[in-house]
C-alpha cells in the first residue's frame, strides 16, 4: 500500500523548532549551531554560498546532488538554491537537534529513511519543485530538471514508474516543462495508480494531460 495522506502524523521538523528557548541547553545548542555556521559562511555576506555548501558536503561526506542535501534545505525552508542564510541555518539545525557535524549526518540519514512514511512527504515533494525555481515569475521547470528531480525525490520509492515516466518525458515533444500542478499530479499518480497494470486509471478524471499521454504511451508499448 502506498503511503496515504492521513497516515501516522509526525510533526514536520520545521515546525517543532526547539525554542523552549529559555533553557540553558537551548542557548548552548544555538551557540554551537552558530559556530558551525561560521565554519562555512562567506564572511562578506553572512550567508553560506555555493562554495561553502560544497565544503559542507565534503565534510558530511555526501554529494551535493544527494537527496539529503535537498532535505536539509527543506528543513531550513531555504529560499534560494545554493545559499543558506543564518536564519535558515538556525531553523533547520535546531529542528534537527544537530549542533555538530556528526549529529547532522545522523539526523539527515534518519530523515531520509523516515520521510517516506509520513504525511509530510507531499510537503517535501512540492518544496523540492519550488526550490528549483530560480527566476522571478518562473512557474515551470524544464523537462531535464524535472527528470533529475524525479530521480532524486520519488525515484527511490517508485523506481519502475519513474523510470518509465522519465523515458516518456524524454521522447515526447509536446511539453518543454512542467508546472507545480503537474509535478504534484505525478506523485499522486505514483501513490494511487496500480503500476504497470494501470487498470484503475480513469482518463475522465482530472489527471494532468501529460499523464493521460503517458498512460496512452504505456498502453501502446505494452501491446
Amino acid at each position: 500500500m502506498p503511503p496515504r495522506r492521513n497516515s501516522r502524523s509526525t510533526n514536520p521538523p520545521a515546525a517543532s523548532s526547539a525554542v523552549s528557548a529559555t533553557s540553558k541547553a537551548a542557548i548552548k545548542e544555538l551557540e554551537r549551531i552558530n559556530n558551525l555556521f561560521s565554519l562555512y559562511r562567506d564572511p562578506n555576506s553572512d550567508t553560506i554560498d555555493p562554495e561553502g555548501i560544497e565544503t559542507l558536503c565534503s565534510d558530511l561526506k555526501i554529494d551535493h546532488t544527494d537527496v539529503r542535501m535537498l532535505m536539509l534545505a527543506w528543513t531550513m525552508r531555504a529560499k534560494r538554491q545554493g545559499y543558506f542564510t543564518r536564519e535558515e541555518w538556525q531553523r533547520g539545525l535546531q529542528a534537527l537537534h544537530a549542533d555538530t557535524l556528526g549529529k547532522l549526518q545522523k539526523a539527515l540519514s534518519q530523515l531520509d529513511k523516515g520521510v517516506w512514511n509520513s504525511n509530510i512527504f507531499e510537503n517535501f515533494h512540492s518544496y523540492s519543485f519550488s526550490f528549483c525555481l530560480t527566476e522571478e515569475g518562473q512557474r515551470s521547470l524544464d523537462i531535464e530538471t524535472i527528470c533529475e528531480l524525479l530521480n532524486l525525490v520519488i525515484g527511490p520509492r517508485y523506481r519502475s514508474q519513474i523510470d518509465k515516466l522519465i523515458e516518456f518525458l524524454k521522447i515526447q515533444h509536446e511539453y518543454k516543462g512542467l508546472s507545480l500542478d503537474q509535478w504534484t499530479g505525478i506523485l499522486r499518480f505514483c501513490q494511487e495508480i496500480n503500476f504497470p497494470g494501470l487498470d484503475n486509471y480513469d482518463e475522465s478524471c482530472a489527471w494532468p494531460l501529460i499523464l493521460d499521454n503517458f498512460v496512452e504511451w504505456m498502453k501502446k508499448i505494452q501491446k
Partner: protein
Amino acid sequence: MAANEKKTIDLEQGWEFMQKGITKLKNILEGLPEPQFCSEDYMMLYTTIYNMCTQKPPHDYSQQLYDKYRESFEEYITSSVLPSLREKHDEFMLRELVRRWVNHKVMVRWLSRFFHYLDRYFITRRSLPPLNEVGLTCFRDLVYQEINGKVRDAVISLIDQEREGEQIDRALLKNVLDIFVEIGLGSMEFYQNDFEAAMLKDTAAYYSRKASNWILEDSCPDYMLKAEECLKREKDRVSHYLHSSSEQKLLEKVQHELLFVYASQLLEKEHSGCHALLRDDKVEDLSRMYRLFSRIPRGLDPVANIFKQHVTAEGTALVKQAEDAASNKKAEKRDVVGVQEQIFVRKVIELHDKYLAYVNDCFNNHSLFHKSLKEAFEVFCNKGVAGSSSAELLATFCDNILKKGGSEKLSDEAIEETLEKVVKLLAYISDKDLFAEFYRKKLARRLLFDKSANDDHERSILTKLKQQCGGQFTSKMEGMVTDLTLARENQSSFEDYLNSNPLANPGIDLTVTVLTTGFWPSYKSFDLNLPAEMVKCVEVFKDFYQTKTKHRKLTWIYSLGTCNINGKFEPKTMELIVTTYQASALLLFNASDKLSYSEIMAQLNLTDDDVVRLLHSLSCAKYKILNKEPNTKTISPTDQFEFNSKFTDRMRRIKIPLPPVDEKKKVIEDVDKDRRYAIDASIVRIMKSRKVLGHQQLVMECVEQLGRMFKPDFKAIKKRIEDLITRDYLERDKDNPNMFRYLA
C-alpha cells in the same frame, strides 16, 4: 265497506286466471293463432294481481305471485326455448337465439305489466330485484349460461369467414353481440369475458398465422399494403357489429401481430425493406411505413435509424466521390478549392433538400426524423474533402456565388435561395468559427479588390448568418462591410483635400481604404521598402488623416495594394495592373538595367517566399515583363533579371496576376489561437459563477457553452485548465484533486 263486500280470491283460483293470460301470451309469441290482447284483457289481469296482493293476510299472495312470476319464465324457457335452441347449430342457432331473445324481451315487458303492482309495493318494500330484472336474469341463467360458449364460437367462426372474404350476415352478428351487452344489464362484463377475450385471442392467432406466411412470401410494400388493408377492415368490422369499446383492443392486437412481431424482419427485407425503399425513392411506401409504424410503441425508432444510416451513406458517398475527383486532378491544382468541391457542396444541398422533403412529407414532420437528418448530416458534413474542411468548402462556395463573375449565372431569387440553404447546412458544421474565419478572409478579398457582385446579397447573407449563429458571429463581418462604405466617403474627402492643397498633391492618383483593426483578418504590415514615389503618397495621406483625427494610428498594409503603372516598351507603351509588391519590384528597373535575385530581395526588404512569388509572376508566367537568366520555369536565388523592353501584347492594358499565398494554414492557426482564448474565457466565466466545481462538470459546461461555435476537444480543455492553474486563476482542491476552485 266495498272491500269487505268483495269476495276474497284464493291463490289457486287467481293463478288459474293468470295462467290463461300467460298461455295466451306464449301462444302469441310462438306465433299460434290467438287474438291480440285488448285493454280489457290487460285490465283484468292487472286487477287480479292487484286484488291478490291487497287482501288481508293470510290472503296476501304477494310472495307467492313473485315466485310464480319467475317460474312462468323458467317453465317457458325449459319447455320451449331451450329445446328449440338445442336442436339448432351455428348460424341457425344464432338466428333462433336472436328471435328467442326478442320474444323473451316482449314476454318480460308484458308479464311485468300484468304483475306491475308487485313492483310498486312488495318489491320496493323488500328491496327485491324488480320484475324486469328477474325476467331478464332468467334468460341469462338458463339460456345464456348454457349456450354462450357455442354462440361465441359460432360468432368467431363467422368473423373468420368474413376475414377470408366471405359474405356474412352482419346484422345477425350485430344482434347476437347486442345480447352479450344487454345481458349484462349495464355491465360490460359478459361481453368482455364471454366474447371479447376469446375474439381477441382468435384475432391474434389468425393474424399471427397470416403474418408468418406473408412475411415470407411478400415484399415489404405488399406486406404493408395488406397490413394497412387489414387494419382498415378490422376498424370497419368494429363499426358494423362489434362494440365500440373493442376497437382499440382489436387494432392493438392486429398491429402487434402484423407489425410489432415482424418489425425488424419487415424493415430489413433485403430487396424491398426500408433501405430499398429509400434507395428507390418509394415515397408512397415510405409514407405508408410511417403511418403503420407510428401506431406501435417505439415503432418509428428503427425506421428513423435506417433513415439516418441511409442519409449518412448517401452523404458519405458524395464525400468519397468528391475525394476521388479531387485526387485525379490533384497534381495540377493543389490546395485551391476547385470546381469539384463546388459541385460537392451543390450536391450536399440537393441531398438536404431531398431528404428534408422526405421528413416533411413522408414522415409527417416528426421530430425523430428531423433528429436523424441532423445527425446524419453532422457525420459527413464534418468530414471534409481532399484536405479541405467543410467549413472552408462552404465559405468558398459562398465566395463563388457572391463574387463578380461567380461560376454561375443565377437570378437574384436563386442566389438568395442558395445562400439560405448554405446557411442551413452550416448548422451541421461543428467548426463554425473556422467557417467564420475563412468567410472573413474571402469577404475581405471581395471587398478590398472590388470583387463583390452585389452589396444586397452580401448584407442578406450576413443577416441570415446572424439569425442562425448570433450577433457575435457576424459583428466583425458587418464591421467590414460598413468600413468599406466609410472608406468611400473618406476617399472623396481626401480628394477634396488634395484639390484645395495643390502643393500636397503627390502627382500620383492615390486611393486609400482605411479599415478598422479587429474587424479584418490580420495582414503583414510595414514589410515592403516602398519606392520613393509611393513614400510621398503615404506621407501626404498621413498629413490629411491627421487633420481628421489625432488619436488614430495608421498601419499600412502594402501586401493588399494595387497599382496601375505605365510600361514604356519598345513596341508600345502599355498600362500594367499589378500589385504594390510587383510595382515596387518593376520600379527598381528604372534605376538599373539588370538586378540579381539577392539585390532585388535586399532592396524590397521582403522574404524569400514573397520575392520568389512575385518574380515568378513577372518573369515565368504568362506575361514576361522581366527576362530571367537562366531562362527556366522556376526562380532560384542565383538568377539574374533584366527589363524586357521587347515585351508587347495584343491589349493595351493588362493585368498581371499574383497568385495569392495559401492562407489555409494561417487561418487554421488563427482559429486555434482564438479557441484557446475562447476556452479560457469560458472556464473562467463558469468558475467565477460556480466558485467550486468538479472536473467533469466543468468540462461539460464548457463544451456546452462553446458548442455553438465549435466542438472543443476534451484534451484542449484539460490543457487550458492546467494553464489557468499555472496562472493562478484556479487551484486544485487540496483534498479532492478532481475539484477546482476559482481564485478571485
